[in-house]
């Protein structure tokens, strides 16, 4: 792969370009969820009553708790970048590790939330669910697909940050070159923003 080395060596490093690419990627993520929000808005518009009824089944407390967790993880993520900018490598790593732990906490919560639903017999295709009004089936369908997709993004984000932590430890990410960490951060904040909308739309419409 000499070709590539050769070509790359002459190209300037361009952090702005890297971030621009990341932002563009974030837009595609945004619109990926956007498609789901289209579904949500139309179905909610057509089945307002049933959505109200169904939302009562969700546990607002867990939702609140998870919101707090994600917001805090966003904070630590942002802090880790400032730390590396200030050349405080150890602090940065610490913040990244906290972020990952919070992500795990979020997923553990989610796991319990989903399994309780399953125990109550509410999952796609279950008899309990099928006995409900169509609007409620839609609500839970959306709930599972949207929070599931979001959960998947949390996992991807956590793995990504894990890789960044490794890079930081190995000195790939440094005071002078941290655009990778920034990109991972941007991704993580996006995951947070999605949740900021999911939370009221599913948990707070009682």
């Amino acid at each position, binding site marked *: 792969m*000499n070709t590539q080395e050769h*070509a790359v060596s002459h190209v300037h490093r361009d952090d702005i370009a890297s971030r621009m690419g990341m932002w*563009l*990627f974030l837009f*595609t993520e945004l*619109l990926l969820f956007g498609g*789901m929000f289209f579904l949500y808005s*139309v*179905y909610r518009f057509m089945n307002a009553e049933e959505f109200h009824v169904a939302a009562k089944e969700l546990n607002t407390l867990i939702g609140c708790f998870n919101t707090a967790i994600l917001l805090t993880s966003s904070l630590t993520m942002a802090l880790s970048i400032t730390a590396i900018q200030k050349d405080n490598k150890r602090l940065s790593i610490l913040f990244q590790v906290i972020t990952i732990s919070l992500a795990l906490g979020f997923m553990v919560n989610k796991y319990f939330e989903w399994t309780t639903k399953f125990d109550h017999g509410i999952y796609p295709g279950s008899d309990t669910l099928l006995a409900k009004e169509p609007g409620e089936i839609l609500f839970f*369908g959306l709930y599972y697909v949207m929070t599931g997709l979001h959960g998947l993004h949390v996992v991807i984000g956590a793995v990504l940050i894990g890789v960044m932590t490794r890079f930081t430890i190995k000195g790939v990410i440094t005071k002078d070159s941290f655009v990778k960490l920034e990109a991972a951060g941007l991704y993580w904040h996006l995951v947070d923003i999605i949740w900021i909308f999911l939370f009221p739309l599913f948990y707070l419409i009682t």
Partner: protein
Amino acid sequence: MTSDAMVVNGKEPSYLEYRGKGKGLKSWIFSTDHKRIGILYLCSLLLFYSVGVIFGFLMRLELIAPGRTIMDPQTYNQIFTLHGVIMIFLFVIPGIPAVFGNFFLPILIGAKDVAFPRINLFSWYLFVTGGLLAILSITLPGGSADTGWTFYVPYSVRTGTNVIFTVFAAFILGFSSILTGLNFVTTVHRMRAPGMSWFKMPLSIWSFYATAWVQVLATPIIGITLLLIAIERWFGVGLFDPALGGDPVLYQHLFWIYSHPAVYIMILPAMGIISEIIPVFARRSIFGYKFIAFSSIGIALFGSLVWAHHMFTVGMSDTGMFVFSILTFLVAIPSAIKVFNWTATLYKGSIDLKPPLYFALGFIFLFSIGGLTGLFQGTLAINIQVHDTSFIVAHFHYVMFGGTGFGIFAAMHYWLPKMFGRMYNHKAAKTAFWFLFIGFNTLYFPMFIMGWLGMPRRYYDYLPEFHIYHLISTIGSWILITGLIIMFTNLIRSLRKREVVTENNIWGGETLEWQIPTPPPLENFEHIPTITEKPYEYKQNEEPELEEIK
């Protein structure tokens, strides 16, 4: 158009010769050089493409007479689905950006590569994976999808064929397309040569840029929509299933929110190519540079607002019908502006009728027919009659094949000599053009007539009264394919036998690719040029006036 700094060391090996460490195939499939990736795309595209063409040919054979001719209805349904999927996702959408965009976009803006070379290579891998997945699904038990390329629910959720496979292939291809898009947006923003302000960019860059935005913003919607079909088939969540309260029409909305903008992903780059070719062979400046540039942006912007014109018979509200119909008409205006400006560019030119110009003019004619019949379909009352008939089939072949397809042919005749340093036989190219042109119209024009008379699309069998049109159409397909064979034989033979081209500027163009050696060296430019002039100035035309001033 450029000042100094164009002195290129003649001994620099071309990108074709430069091998690096890897040898043979490896030096290609691991290369992150945008030119090599362009060629990779070209080869894989041609491969997938020939499968699509064969399917098209087989469909025409089946339809040569009513009743069964060569296949059963199930096979026919699978074949037109795969034909549509291949042509759309593997040919016209990636076609120009991935092949010619990759090769020429960096050169045209005076850069050494795209912004993210490795992502660029990755997107080719995705492309090939998706393509193979789509095509190999024929071999699975149960067969490939039989839903039409639109995958409408509830049928796509209920049919026993391997819809998930095809849908997943389309998902991967979408991802590949997104990566190309974000690469191009970033490249255009960050890597233009010094002095190349927005209005000094060649017009094809404007098209690629506008296209890239559509790719980035619209593609994820189809991604999630297709993913939902898979989820629906696996888990029966019921998001679209009418039995569980879902709304099949909402699926159609989501599908077209992407797939209408996608038609502009297909046509915009082709329009860019035409805007490059016409001034070069008319030997004069382009007419209305800014209008053409802004109309690209206009198409990209307004193109996102008209999707529901594919759904005029589903029972939308009257307000919806009104809004989407009127927006559909407005989006035609930027295309009209382009057509008028191209025509005006021929005025008082010194026209050199070389093969690329043949194809460019063919493009304008066929695209105009396609576009104008689009207006028929946008007219509500007429749409009711022609929706889902072969009128639509004719329309989209005129725009996609007559438009984008001929755009690709034009690009091949214009740029292949630059890419490989070999010239094809001009006479054979012109012969091929006439075969293609006549075959094309014979093949597709009858479809307009029978569509208006009520011949529905996706029909394996048909009433005897439509026989004559189908017959003519099938004969057209033979003429067309003859043209294809002549054209490709000519092009491929040129790579092996024909004369070697070494001059930089084969056609007398003024954009950057003509200032560098043929074929281009690995790094395109020895020194990044500084741009001082607009493209397509053709200063020599203005000499007399300068003398008068003296």
